[in-house]
């Protein structure tokens, strides 16, 4: 789905103030209590049924990507976080991007603009491993699929997480 489509679907379902409050109230996490949606309803000034209905609607529209447990991959031992970047033939990027995005070891896969002369890469795929060798092996698998369509690539490993918070909506 392109960004334009996202914006369009957002406009079509028309997020209102209550929806935005629900996003704000839930992005930091649902409570680990018996009736977590009740707490959300109380916070946004609605009722439980309405909160659930609105969350299902936002999930269906793709505004909420998923609802569930969010593991901390780093704490689970996935300490090698590699941003692989590829210089892919523009004519084939959509076709190849979808192939790479479907691989189960890829957690994010985006088309982004080049910024010449500083930046030549247009396909960004995040891969993770228990160590660098495991992440590099994933990059090799991607390279094999892209073949000649990728003129060059690099892996940028993260060395420090300087800030990481959920998406924050401004009130």
């Amino acid at each position, binding site marked *: 789905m392109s960004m334009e489509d996202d914006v369009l679907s957002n406009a079509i379902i028309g997020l209102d103030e209550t929806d935005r409050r629900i996003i704000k109230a839930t992005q930091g996490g649902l409570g680990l209590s018996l009736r977590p949606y009740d707490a959300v309803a109380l916070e946004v000034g609605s009722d439980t049924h309405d909160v659930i209905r609105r969350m299902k609607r936002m999930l269906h529209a793709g505004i909420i990507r998923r609802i569930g447990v969010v593991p901390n991959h780093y704490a689970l031992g996935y300490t090698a976080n590699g941003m692989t970047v590829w210089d892919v033939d523009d004519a084939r990027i959509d076709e190849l991007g979808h192939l790479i995005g479907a691989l189960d070891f890829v957690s994010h896969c985006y088309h982004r603009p080049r910024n010449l002369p500083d930046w030549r890469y247009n396909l960004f795929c995040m891969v993770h491993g228990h160590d660098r060798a495991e992440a590099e092996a994933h990059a090799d698998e991607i390279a094999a699929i892209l073949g000649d369509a990728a003129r060059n690539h690099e892996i*940028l490993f993260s060395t420090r997480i300087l800030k990481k918070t959920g*998406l924050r909506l401004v009130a």
Partner: protein
Amino acid sequence: MNDLTKNLLDEFQRDFPMTARPYAAIAERLEASEDDVIEALKGLHEQGTLSRVGAVIQTGTVGHSTLAAMSVPSDRLDEVATIVSGFDAVNHNYEREHHLNLWFVITAENADAVDGVIAEIIRLTGIKVLNLPMLDNYHLDLGFRLQWN
């Protein structure tokens, strides 16, 4: 890690029950008690292996966001990283091994607000910022399959 906690982390990254008592619904599927599920999740959270239980918002659907990169001299990295992380609009900031060594995500209400943050970072640091917004998303997020060692 026992089977209950592994199953919680593996099988509920998506399709979390949207019912008034979601942990009871999970408990039923895992043949555990509602209290066991809640206690196990609390334990994982305290241990740090569970970030949260909640909604993951699709970047670009609410507000506007971009990925930005800077090439920061190593002796200024801490100073510049602190300036960048100080913006509320910056929600991820990573140091990476590359001459472009600082990578961060800016999210704001609209494109103008994002451009404003970039301009302010350039003004405060005197360093160029590459603006690399998402053009297409090729990955449908179904969670991430964990491999247990």
